[in-house]
């Protein structure tokens, strides 16, 4: 019954592509200062320079190096993606597990709340809140998490309900294990792969939304962000600069999102026994 999820993911085509893309983006973000000699906000040359040995992707309208900004923009995207994924995952686990374990009225109320929240489009609420409050990265992470957790909570609750009735949990309960002990020692470890799938899904949506919001101009003005770069570049689309300003930024963003999509798809296929290819684990 035990499936080696890691193996399933990194040996399938989509999984390999997805993981490769993610590793590439994370490396670029972490090693940003080593990969470029400039600071993202520094003015490094004449405006609108074409790509050259000094400026790999040329410069923008105020002479900032685009390649440098692309690298540092990865940090913002990944920070928002990771932050939202972790925070909304915590909320999902908290609500999903507690509903499944406590049951009764609390469960019904919480699920009602989840049903209500799930139909609210998060980006719209984030636009509203961020327009009034001063937008910054932390606020953005909190806001997006507040509207992304319900989907995960539903999945976690369903899974916990089924795990709750399994033999090991039942046995632990006969030995007098408390609810918290059950939760941390038996249920959460078994939720593992599903939680990772949720993290990937939430991170993907968060990266998407962060780009969209900063494209609208809703972002921390001091932070470099891909969405903001694209919005900025779109204003100069009548010049030739879009070839090395707009397109690389868009493609980097798309590749990051695709990295999450492909990894998530591979993991989902591995998690769903009906979708999993028989040949994939027969030789195990």
């Amino acid at each position: 019954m035990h499936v080696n999820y890691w193996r399933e993911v990194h040996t399938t085509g989509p999984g390999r592509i997805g993981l490769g893309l993610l590793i590439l983006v994370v490396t670029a973000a972490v090693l940003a200062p080593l990969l470029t000699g400039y600071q993202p906000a520094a003015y490094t040359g004449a405006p609108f320079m074409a790509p050259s040995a000094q400026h790999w992707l040329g410069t923008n309208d105020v002479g900032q190096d685009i390649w440098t900004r692309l690298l540092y923009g990865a940090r913002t995207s990944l920070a928002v993606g990771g932050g939202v994924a972790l925070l909304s995952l915590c909320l999902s686990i908290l609500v999903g597990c507690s509903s499944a374990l406590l049951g009764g009225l609390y469960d019904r109320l919480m699920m009602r709340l989840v049903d209500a929240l799930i139909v609210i489009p998060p980006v719209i609420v984030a636009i509203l809140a961020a327009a009034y409050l001063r937008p910054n990265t932390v606020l953005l992470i909190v806001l997006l998490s507040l509207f992304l957790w319900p989907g995960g909570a539903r999945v976690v609750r369903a899974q916990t309900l089924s795990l709750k009735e399994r033999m090991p949990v039942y046995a632990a309960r006969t030995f007098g294990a408390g609810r918290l002990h059950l939760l941390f020692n038996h249920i959460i470890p078994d939720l593992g792969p599903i939680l990772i799938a949720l993290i990937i899904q939430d991170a993907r949506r968060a990266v998407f939304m962060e780009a969209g919001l900063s494209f609208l101009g809703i972002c921390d003005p001091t932070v470099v962000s891909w969405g903001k770069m694209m919005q900025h570049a779109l204003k100069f689309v009548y010049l030739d600069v879009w070839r090395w300003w707009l397109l690389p930024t868009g493609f980097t963003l798309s590749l990051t999102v695709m990295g999450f999509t492909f990894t998530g798809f591979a993991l989902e296929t591995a998690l769903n026994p009906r979708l999993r290819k028989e040949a994939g684990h027969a030789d195990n």
Partner: protein
Amino acid sequence: MQECVQTRHVPIRNKVFKKASVLNKASIINYVVALLIILTMNFFIPRLMPGDPLQAIYGNEALLVMTPELQEELTHRFSLDRPLGEQYASYLLSLCRGDLGHSYYYNAPVLKVISGFLPWTLLLTGLALVISTLVGFFLGVESGSRRGRPLDQVLLGSIMLFSGFPDFFMGIMLLLFFGVFLSLVPLSGALTPYAGHSGLMLVADLLHHLALPLAALVLVRLTATYLLTRSTMITTLGEAFILTAKAKGCPERIIRYRHAGRNTLLPVVTAAGLQFAHLVTGTLFVEIVFSYPGLGSLLYKSLLTRDYPLMAGILLVLTVVVLTINLLLDVFYSKLDPRVAKCT
């Protein structure tokens, strides 16, 4: 004789009653709660800001251009000088009257400004929803029933590739390629201004402008329906009734659509409701890229001009549209799946 009549009547009445109660209990409360959450947020977020409520709601720029009489009138209309509870009641009451406040940039009631832009957004979103669901379903069924074969692999790969592009970047690429590079389609707007088209020419002009934004939305939004249909299709094709259909010699195409496809449709319709929320957000961005005169462009303008009441009004109207569509889909779903209406 009389007994017979009664037994015939009772189930029908029960059925109608049950159908109504299913919708009442399961959906309507959810939508009311969702609406209340949105209304409360809409109400409280501006009031969390320091300072006078009028200043917080309308922003400093707006106050500068407003006449004192208008300020006085707005304060009075929304009871802004009263305690918070009364303000909330007054806010809800004015919403019931359809009063969303005053847009200082357009110097007109917010609802009136929005109603001029809403039809375009509804047209774009509605068409995108229908087309992406239909095409996604069709491709999903074809792909799921050919799992692992070349066509499935190609479809899966290319559609997942499309889904990685954010809506607005897809829009930008289409715009650059078809609009700027090939000059096939107009770069912005929804109709050619002052062209005075009528009848078929008007429709053709409309479609000409609509093609690119619609294509961008459909290409990106196709994936969710496609992936869901494909995986449900794979699961359904493994069920016993498919084997029965095959055993009795049903043609392949009929099994694919009438047996498996019909059952696959159920989760797809459920998901379409959730999809719609994402679709609306996507439409906003795509409209901005194409300067399509819908709510997205209006929202962008209101963000740039800091016209807060207009912005809050747009977001409220969009949320109400999303909730309504979800409610309609729920009704549709219980019609589509008789089990839902019967079991609860």
